[in-house]
């Protein structure tokens, strides 16, 4: 249930992101989801990609600072209160979220990537409440 997310340090300069996506394409690595957190000077690209170890290797070889972090991916139905319920469960169990981002995987549901410092506990409580979590294999192929 733990998903390997790639985080890449990016300077805010033109063409840098294109360079990165180009490297991944050349190596036949698919990007399932991504988000960028940015400040005035730099950004952090976080993404779920196929073959995360290979992606880490080729990006490092091309001079990027890359880090693999553990996240969990949860499916949330497209209906009012869907996300709220999941977050309530985490908060009730004292699990704080460092950051999260969502992507639409199908018409009737969204997938949320969650970074927390207690991923195992989060998995446990979410499953207990019958929320659907994605397995690594599912996510990398999305």
């Amino acid at each position: 249930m733990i998903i390997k997310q790639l985080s890449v340090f990016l300077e805010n300069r033109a063409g840098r992101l294109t360079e990165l996506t180009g490297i991944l394409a050349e190596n036949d690595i698919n990007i399932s989801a991504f988000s960028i957190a940015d400040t005035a000077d730099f950004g952090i690209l976080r993404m779920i990609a196929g073959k995360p170890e290979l992606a880490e290797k080729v990006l490092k070889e091309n001079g990027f600072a890359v880090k693999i972090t553990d996240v969990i991916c949860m499916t949330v139905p497209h209906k009012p209160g869907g996300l709220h319920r999941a977050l309530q469960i985490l908060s009730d169990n004292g699990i704080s979220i460092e950051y999260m981002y969502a992507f639409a995987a199908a018409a009737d549901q969204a997938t949320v990537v969650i970074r927390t410092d207690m991923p195992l506990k989060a998995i446990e409580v979410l499953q207990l409440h019958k929320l659907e979590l994605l397995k690594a294999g599912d996510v990398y192929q999305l």
Partner: protein
Amino acid sequence: MIWNEHHECMERGQLASLQGERLKAMVERVYFNVPFYRNKLQEMGIEPGDIRTVEDLKLLPFTTKQDLRDNYPFGLFAVPQQDVVRLHASSGTTGKSTVVGYTHNDIMMWAEVVARSLTMAGITKSDIVQVAYGYGLFTGGLGLHYGAEKVGASVIPISGGNTKKQLQLLEDFGSTAIACTPSYAAYLGEALDEEKVDRSKLKLRAGIFGAEPWTEEMRAQIEKSLGIKAYDIYGLSEVIGPGVSMECSCQKGMHIFEDHFIPEIINPESGEVLPYGELGELVFTTVTKEAMPLIRYRTRDLTRLHVGTCECGRTLARMEKCVGRSDDMLIIRGVNVFPSQVESVLLEMSETRPHYLLVVDRDNNLDTLEIQVEVEDQFFSDEVKELEALRKRIGSNLTSILGLHATVRLVEPGTIERSMGKAQRVVDKRKLK
């Protein structure tokens, strides 16, 4: 062990009067024998009689590397050519090389200061010293050679290079000490591994390394890979060669042999003499050298001097490892900034590496300083708040060392050129406007 207790542990007042006597005699010698110095002193209205004590040193003019070049090859010699027994030259990276001459007494004095240096590293006549500095016009090889012979050690004059032979002699002859550049020492350590030399067969225990800048990190690495204690020796051919100063076993800076070489620290911009403990350019006056005495020679090396009796018993002043070259100094908002200061801050922080670039600019007539620091893979956090905290930490450490505000910009790894040169460390956009 102290080679020359009388001179190395002299009471400071007594040392000052010895320096004063020697200075006075030296100024007289150059005034009457070196037209360059005579003209310079006359222009400043100074006569030899004006120099009576070491305090009067500050009245004298500086000598620069350019003066040596302008007087190429023998223009600064203070003795007739028949009294010169040795010539060395440094390969100038720019322009002509600089030539230095030695009389018989100079060679003896040089052997004496190197003998003192080797004794600091615990070397005695029972040692076998492998001199892996280059022999030739460069002063390293012969300088260490004569000093080691004076101590009475068995000297192996193998010179530099030929690594396989170096390793073979280390093993077969049982060398107990080696003298070479620190980068070559690091290389020898790697070669030991590659050649799979059995370290238990080696008797090596001390290394005397100098002639190029090296860090404490390198010291630790060399000590580990060669299984020795590594000592720092400092010198420059213009002053004598290796043996101007040397670390004792306390390793709290290098003791300068002040009875022969009087050190001063000056503000490289104004020439003003700075008190002990302050960072500035190191200047030497050689008071006993006969062939080519130098008055207030500007080394362009930046360091600090410390006095106070060392735990080893020596009273000689200690200089810190040089932190850079005065040529690299920048003036930003009136504050003197050396790129090496930035480097030292980054080296001290465990989460940064010294890969940086200073970008100086001018915004509304006010100088700005941006310091770009590479984000290292192993310290890269994927959280913005942690990277921001790192940026602030670097910034506040820099501000307190530099004495002015610097903006820190985190950049991707490998984007700053790897080089020791100034050109790659600093971009001064003010000059373009």
